[in-house]
């Protein structure tokens, strides 16, 4: 096999913060010596916004997709045109992480309508006869710990047929009483969401209790804004007809990349919510919604 190009970031978890120096090596390995027209390394950070088909027409969604916002962008020329010897060549690099102008380095986030991503791209230009070589590598940016003291905001809840909204025929519902609490709706992103749920009573057998983590992404543009809620993950916390009166733990780890501290900018917003979903036999679905505020400390 010919020539291989690879980027190795120094930190195993590839996590960096604003102001830090991103460092690593570019590895060129080849059996024979490699002629090239220069090797460059580009660091780029962008926010990609997309309007959902629901918010605007399908055609528009494709067409009107908001222009990506570049947060950071720099390129360095690593090696001038020349020749690499055969074997493995490692070229170290360093990038100071500083946003362009007065922009902020948002935390890496992989969403549906909002994507914040940071990449390193290494290009080896070669003569016309050989194809240029490119290697891309994502690194992760965590926003700086938020200032100010973190205060938990516990919330207790009780769910009965009476507390439900959006019910067509309340009389048809079986009787039940669910009680519980979330330890805090202010969540540290590295800590799990915790709480307890007690099925105090229920006429109908419980089929399942699930925690649905939802992202709410808002993209603003000249015409207004689009707000879309989509599921990130759904975690079952009870399977089958659980014991009455015994608390079932509510526990959910926030997935990396797919969550970030709650983010609010002029152009877009990323927020999170959790739904506690109780499925009753034969076919009742009860949802209790809790907006969350994620932060990093």
């Amino acid at each position: 096999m010919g020539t291989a190009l690879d980027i190795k970031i120094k930190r195993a978890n590839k996590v960096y913060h604003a102001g830090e120096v991103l460092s690593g090596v570019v590895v060129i390995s080849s059996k024979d010596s490699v002629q090239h027209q220069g090797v460059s390394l580009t660091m780029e950070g962008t926010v990609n916004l997309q309007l959902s088909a629901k918010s605007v027409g399908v055609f528009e969604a494709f067409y009107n997709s908001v222009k990506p916002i570049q947060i950071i962008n720099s390129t360095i020329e690593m090696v001038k045109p020349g020749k690499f010897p055969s074997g493995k060549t490692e070229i170290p690099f360093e990038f100071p992480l500083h946003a362009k102008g007065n922009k902020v380095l948002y935390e890496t986030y992989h969403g549906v309508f909002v994507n914040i991503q940071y990449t390193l791209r290494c290009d080896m230009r070669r003569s016309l006869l050989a194809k240029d070589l490119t290697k891309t590598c994502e690194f992760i940016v965590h926003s700086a710990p938020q200032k100010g003291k973190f205060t938990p905001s516990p919330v207790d809840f009780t769910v009965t047929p009476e507390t439900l909204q959006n019910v067509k025929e309340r009389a048809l519902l079986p009787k039940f009483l669910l009680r519980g609490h979330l330890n805090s709706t202010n969540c540290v992103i590295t800590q799990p969401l915790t709480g307890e749920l007690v099925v105090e009573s229920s006429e109908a057998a419980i089929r399942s209790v699930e925690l649905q983590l939802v992202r709410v992404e808002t993209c603003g543009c000249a015409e207004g804004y689009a707000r879309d809620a989509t599921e990130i993950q759904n975690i079952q916390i009870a399977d089958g007809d659980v014991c009455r009166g015994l608390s079932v733990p509510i526990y959910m780890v926030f997935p990396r990349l797919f969550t970030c501290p709650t983010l609010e900018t002029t152009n877009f917003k990323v927020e999170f919510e959790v739904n506690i979903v109780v499925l009753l036999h034969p076919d009742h679905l009860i949802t209790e919604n809790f907006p969350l505020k994620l932060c990093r400390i």
Partner: protein
Amino acid sequence: VAPAEVVTWAVRSGQLPLTSMASAENEVCAVWSVACPSQTWRLQKVQCGLSGAGQVPSTNMAAGDAGRGGVWMGSRADGPRTSGHVTGKMAVFPWHSRNRNYKAEFASCRLEAVPLEFGDYHPLKPITVTESKTKKVNRKGSTSSTSSSSSSSVVDPLSSVLDGTDPLSMFAATADPVALAAATDSSRRKRDRDDNSVVGSDFEPWANKRGEILARYTTTEKLSINLFMGSEKGKAGTATLAMSEKVRTRLEELDDFEEGSQKELLNLTQQDYVNRIEELNQSLKDAWASDQKVKALKIVIQCSKLLSDTSVIQFYPSKFVLITDILDTFGKLVYERIFSMCVDNRSVLPDHFSPENANDTAKETCLNWFFKIASIRELIPRFYVEASILKCNKFLSKTGISECLPRLTCMIRGIGDPLVSVYARAYLCRVARLTWGSVSCSALLLNSVMSAFRAEFIATRSMDFIGMIKECDESGFPKHLLFRSLGLNLALADPPESDRLQILNEAWKVITKLKNPQDYINCAEVWVEYTCKHFTKREVNTVLADVIKHMTPDRAFEDSYPQLQLIIKKVIAYFHDFSVLFSVEKFLPFLDMFQKESVRVEVCKCIMDAFIKHQQEPTKDPVILNALLHVCKTMHDSVNALTLEDEKRMLSYLINGFIKMVSFGRDFEQQLSFYVESRSMFCNLEPVLVQLIHACVAYCFITIPSLAGIFTRLNLYLHSGQVALANQCLSQADAFFKAAISLIPEVPKMINIDGKMRPSESFLLEFLCNFFSTLLIVPHGRGAGVYLTVLVCSTVDSNDSLYGGDSKFLAENNKLCETVMAQILEHLKALAKDEALKRQSSLGLSFFNSILAHGDLRNNKLNQLSVNLWHLAQRHGCADTRTMVKTLEYIKKQSKQPDMTHLTELALRLPLQTRT
């Protein structure tokens, strides 16, 4: 001796050419007892009359003094002893014995020795059950269930027995196909060992339990496996547009592997199921080896999902085992992979590493797994998979495992199905063994642990348990019960040597403080065993003293006899040396607590039983004797009119066992005085008195050889023998007689009497007369057989060698034989009168055989007699033809020997009756 069997005979009558005996109706016979020899012996006088001799046509008997024969057994009034001596004079047939070489005859009769070949079939060789067969049986049980008839699907336990399979190999066989699933058995064992390094190697390994479960929980019902290799689409979002290359590859990878494929395997037999699971296990390993980690994870998730299905409930435990095997494999793969990442070229991570030693890449990988697993949608797979890699927490933080456990435990609450949730707990417990000891628990749990775990495991951690017992929450479960449970474990398994005394001290500190005597004794009873097992009499004494102290107030012992009895039993069980046992000061005071007689006797019985079982050497230890006499006296004194025979027999057996073990060696005086004391103590138990007589007889037997005078010795042997005989000590009598016989050759020709040398003959003769008459009544068989025996006896080796060719002796001997023969003939006649024809016939034949064996048939009279007997035997058709034929063959065979040619002629004179 020629073959002479008494068989059943066909009845024939009156056709014989020769009737050597008068027909039955013409005989008059006075008393002739053939009853018990000992009774015969008491017979004062036996008369036998015979009339109508004229009807005996042509026999030697007629030629002789037939009809005048009288036999009486004289009684010699010689003290209390009565002895019979045959002095009949009926010289009908003079005895002529033939020469025999017993040694040569014996040698010629012996079986030919064949060299033994080892390795061949041998009836005593252990039976080996061939495995192939048992396997077949098992397979029948599990696969034939495809047919609808239910009867064929069940292995009939009886028929399987007939198949020659024993329950053990059945067990092995049922476990076997399942065990095939354990391809990685050796590695599993190794891993178990590794895991056990935390909890200790004595923790019952999972492999043991595993096999048991698989063998026990089987089914013939249909099983199904439902695998849904669903894509993870939507979970991570569908907008792949802006995803990094890596994430995209991951997702593609997910899609590649049978995306959305649903495999539903229905109608599986148990074996099929096992095979499928094994396939999955294999594909898990393959996927892992080919770096398809996501696929591996999917397999594990799908497999753990199967555990939520409880449809064939009796198979669930086995399913649990099979699937947790996969989880174990997975857990091991993940752990080893992360572990290998920590190993760089320079150093290898030690087994007990701390998280700081793990490098960042390893930690990151580990974290990745946890994140991935945390996002598994369904509860049961998420629980199982996370539990399976619990050990990996070690890479992240020191306290990781112990922080995870409570959470995972609570997580199980979400499982609605009780069975599924209990098994989930079981799995968690299994993987959580790693954090043993870090939990503080309630008394109830502690007690459950102590009763469920292996005693060895508990015992080695006794000190830990004592600590936990002290600290645990006592509510609802009293601590003395915990100490009791611990004591029970310690009775079964030994704690480390260094801890032993401390354990006892710690435990006893608590026990002795128990106020309630019942609580106290229940606890103390258990700990006595531990004390006896590991400590000396000093500690045991202390414990016994403590028990006495607790149980004496308010006569608390009255309510606790069973426990107190157990204590005694345990002490006895460990102190086999009774001199040590009785030197435990508090032992006898302890016995005094048994004030209810029935219980006291029971305890005494236990003690005696143990004594008989364990005392190897005879003893004269005064401590033992005193104590045991006391014990025996207690037992003896419990005997009253209402005592059952069985009970008496038991008590007698025990007391006798004691008496037998008492020996003062050469100090006969002491011995005798012991017997005297015993006699006065145990007079109510007849078997004990018998035993004492035995003992005295034995005493005589031992003492006699110490005397000088040979005739004194001989006569004492005889007298003792007679006493023994009178007391039904037959074997002892036999021993005396044998001793006498072996002493006879030592009699010198001349003996010193009153300073003069006199020939010993007359003394010997007198002795022998007495001796033989006694021998006569020694039971050797029944009835007339006695006489035949005597006939044989008279030619025994000892006499022969003693008197060799002494003509006088021979004459005497022959005379004796003649008398005996005359008596036998009389008896034969009497039998005819009693119509005991069969008996007559068989006796006749026996007599014939005796003459043939020992008599010289060149003598005409003997010859004629034997011919007559032959006819008599066949008369009335009572003879067994086969025996007669065999006898005749034997005679013919004998006649071929050089000095036996005269038998040829005899054989010709012996006709064989044909049965017509």
